[in-house]
């Protein structure tokens, strides 16, 4: 306590909400007995104009340097009272609330007990207030340029959308060509137009846009800094390039799963291929005559364990585990637990393409459940009209593939509707495999400290309320980097990401969290524990000392409790402040 505290306590009746149960005058009298309290009185409604004026005037009249309002919950009324304090000339963080309504008068009926509890709550608040310190909310400038990582359809759309708004965009693609996975495809569901019709205009527009700098054959080496001020180092054809941006959009896409060799005879028997490989054959015109083709759905998806919640967001062990899973032949027999949601439509697409080219072909789709959501139901009906056969197999008895005479393949499976074993002799088997997290995505996530979700995709800040955002301020997700999507969904997310980034850049400055952690550099030994634990990458250990990047810290306090040297403190939630409340919870121990 630097200055001698002069505390003013305002106890609220809240009409009869508090006053009807708690003996407010008694609480006021009690507050007056507490050390450093120089003023205590009551209001009928403290949040009324009259009540707020009373706070403003009393601060001046009594030269208060701490204000405690005993009323309702700080979650709704703290901002209002803080403003009143500020208008009265007091730093708004020298204000403390005692919740004697939600936590007291509304939940206890016995007036005597409630009054005693209210006194305790007021005492705790006064005790804590003695240790409060003024805080500032720093402002931060946001550079009006953006980095888009990944030049697939999502990255292209996001880049164009930002560039059209006048922001400078650096579009970085590690391959020599733009276009991503879509470039490998032949025609697109549900319209069956050529990929080039969708892709080429976007690629041309990005390349020729005056606000976009396209860097192909370029990888990200390092990203330093934080929202508004990221410094990017990239390697382009072995040469280093550097630039600064205010925001980042991650559009690194996803990989298509390859089954390990031998799984469904993949890589063993000729004629067994993934849907992507089948589509490449179609694209190159290598399907030359009518054939019998069997497609198997959910190969490598909707199997295996769904990871327990404990792994969600906990980055380190998870990333290691995922990487090894992906690097093993881009997957393992374990497979992936989620539904990749593009494979059903994609199989139907290829089936239609084949039937339309060679109506005498026989195409069978073996599925567990067929998921043709939204308008794709029409697409499914179209396939049925073309006499594509849909047969069901069950998860427990996956289809088996073997050689058949005459260079053919035999697919044997159990049909639960017929209740018997069936087999089909065919020319080709196409395996519908999922979109899976990419190695590049995971490595980048690690670099940017973006947590992964339970499937290994980059995690959005909140599934329901904050999609597109990441946990790291100023970094947004577009496309399949965040999970399986088809092209229209990827484009929606890319435009959303561009909108989120442009809000930040359009505002030019943001107010950052006042309640951050601070490191006492004299005590810090650079052990790195804080850096490991912080969910926002706000601790940077350099030269044996940790520093908190205030723009990133959200003030959770996790690092404060962990630091072995007790070198970190949380503004507005210091040990002294918390312990003052603890020590006064049951008896008076004001110091």
């Amino acid at each position, binding site marked *: 306590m630097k200055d001698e505290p002069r505390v003013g306590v305002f106890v609220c009746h809240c009409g009869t909400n508090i006053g009807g149960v708690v003996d407010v005058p008694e609480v006021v009298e009690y507050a007056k007995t507490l050390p450093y309290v120089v003023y205590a009185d009551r209001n009928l409604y403290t949040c009324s104009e009259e009540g707020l004026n009373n706070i403003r005037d009393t601060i001046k009249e009594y030269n208060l340097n701490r204000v405690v309002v005993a009323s309702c*919950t*700080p*979650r709704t009324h703290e901002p209002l009272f803080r403003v009143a304090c500020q208008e009265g000339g007091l730093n708004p963080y020298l204000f403390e609330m005692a*919740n004697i*309504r*939600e*936590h*007291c008068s*509304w*939940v*206890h*009926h*016995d007036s005597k*007990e*409630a009054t*005693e*509890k209210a006194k*305790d*709550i007021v005492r*705790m608040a006064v005790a804590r207030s003695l240790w409060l310190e003024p805080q500032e909310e720093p402002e931060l400038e946001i550079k009006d340029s953006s980095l888009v990582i990944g030049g697939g359809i999502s990255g292209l759309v996001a880049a164009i959308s930002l560039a059209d708004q006048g922001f400078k965009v650096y579009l970085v693609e590690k391959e020599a060509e733009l276009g991503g996975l879509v470039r490998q495809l032949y025609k697109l569901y549900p319209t069956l137009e050529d990929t080039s019709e969708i892709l080429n205009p976007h690629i041309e527009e990005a390349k020729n846009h005056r606000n976009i700098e396209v860097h192909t054959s370029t990888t990200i080496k390092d990203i330093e800094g934080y929202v508004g001020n990221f410094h990017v180092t990239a390697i382009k054809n072995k040469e280093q390039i550097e630039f600064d941006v205010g925001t980042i959009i991650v559009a690194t896409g996803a990989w298509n799963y390859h089954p390990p060799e031998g799984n469904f005879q993949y890589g063993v028997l000729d004629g067994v291929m993934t849907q992507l490989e089948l589509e490449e054959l179609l694209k190159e015109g290598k399907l030359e005559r009518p054939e019998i083709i069997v497609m198997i759905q959910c190969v490598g998806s909707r199997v295996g364990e769904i990871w327990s*919640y*404990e792994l*969600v*967001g*906990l980055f*380190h*062990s998870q990333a290691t585990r995922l990487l090894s899973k992906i690097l093993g032949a881009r997957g393992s027999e374990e497979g992936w637990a989620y539904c990749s949601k593009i494979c059903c439509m994609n199989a139907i697409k290829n089936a239609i393409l084949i039937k339309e080219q060679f109506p005498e072909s026989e195409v069978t789709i073996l599925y567990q459940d067929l998921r043709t959501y939204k308008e794709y139901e029409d697409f499914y009906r179209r396939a049925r009209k073309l006499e594509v056969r849909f047969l069901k197999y069950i998860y427990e008895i996956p289809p088996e593939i073997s050689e058949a005479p005459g260079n053919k393949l035999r697919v044997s499976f159990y049909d639960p509707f017929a209740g018997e074993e069936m087999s089909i002799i065919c020319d080709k088997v196409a395996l519908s495999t999922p979109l899976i997290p990419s190695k590049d995505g995971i490595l980048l996530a690690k670099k940017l400290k973006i*947590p992964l979700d339970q499937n290994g995709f980059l995690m959005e800040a909140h599934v329901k309320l904050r999609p597109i955002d990441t946990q790291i301020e100023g970094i947004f997700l577009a496309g399949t980097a965040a999970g399986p999507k088809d092209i229209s969904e990827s484009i929606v997310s890319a435009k959303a990401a561009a909108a989120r980034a442009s809000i930040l850049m359009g505002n030019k400055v943001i107010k950052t969290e006042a*309640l951050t952690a601070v490191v006492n550099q004299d005590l810090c030994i650079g*052990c790195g*524990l804080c850096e*490991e*634990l912080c*969910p*926002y990458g706000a601790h940077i250990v350099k030269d044996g000392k940790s520093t908190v990047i205030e723009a990133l810290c*959200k*003030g*959770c*306090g*996790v690092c*404060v*409790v*962990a*630091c*072995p*040297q*007790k070198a970190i403190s*949380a503004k507005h*939630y210091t*040990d002294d402040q*918390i*312990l003052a*409340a*603890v*020590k*006064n*919870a*049951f*008896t008076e*121990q004001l110091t």
Partner: protein
Amino acid sequence: MSVGYEPKILGFLCNWCSYAGADLAGVSRFEYPPNARVIRVMCSGRVDPVHILEGFKSGADGVLVTGCHPGDCHYVSGNFSTERRVEIMKKVVNKIGIDPERIRLEWVSASEGRKYAELVKEYTDSIRKLGPFPLNEISDLLDAAIGAFGSERVRWLMNKQLEEIEPEKAENVIITSIEREIERYQLFQILEKGNSTVSEMAKQTNLPSDVIVQHLIALMKQGTAAITAEAEHEYIYTLSR
């Protein structure tokens, strides 16, 4: 209510879920016993084991820590840290004579007003059955534990991810190490009051002499304690500062 003992509960509530849940209990007028005094923290991950132990020292009979459900923490993973810390802590305090039920971690979301009200009621009843916290009996041990949980070694152990070791083994290592640290703090506290010998310390702490000697050697290596004299075939140890 019958005359007699009313338990005192100290609650730590995270701002985003549990405090909001408690607010909702109020808005919904769910009545519950008035035994709890609560402290709002931004995240349950801000609750320091030392705060919990200081709670007992300040008169709490039970400490209730509440946070967002796993996966819902406003700060992504704060509550996982809390869970780990509280789990370890409960096992350690059990060994020094504090019933682990006196520390309780629960998840309460912003919509679980009823759960919060019932939790306070149920926990108050549970602590009522346990009776008052044995503050007088174990106050020295409690002080030693406060020292230990604030120490560099224990904070490291409680928070470092030990990926190389199997989780169960790791937990055993952590718990025994913390116990040792508490013993060391017990000796430290005795020496803080004045010079002492191994047999005196054994009497005061009920620790075996060989354990005490080991700790003293460690303290001497650190430069915290030293032998300053000899009396009746025993060394006299002093705190060196």
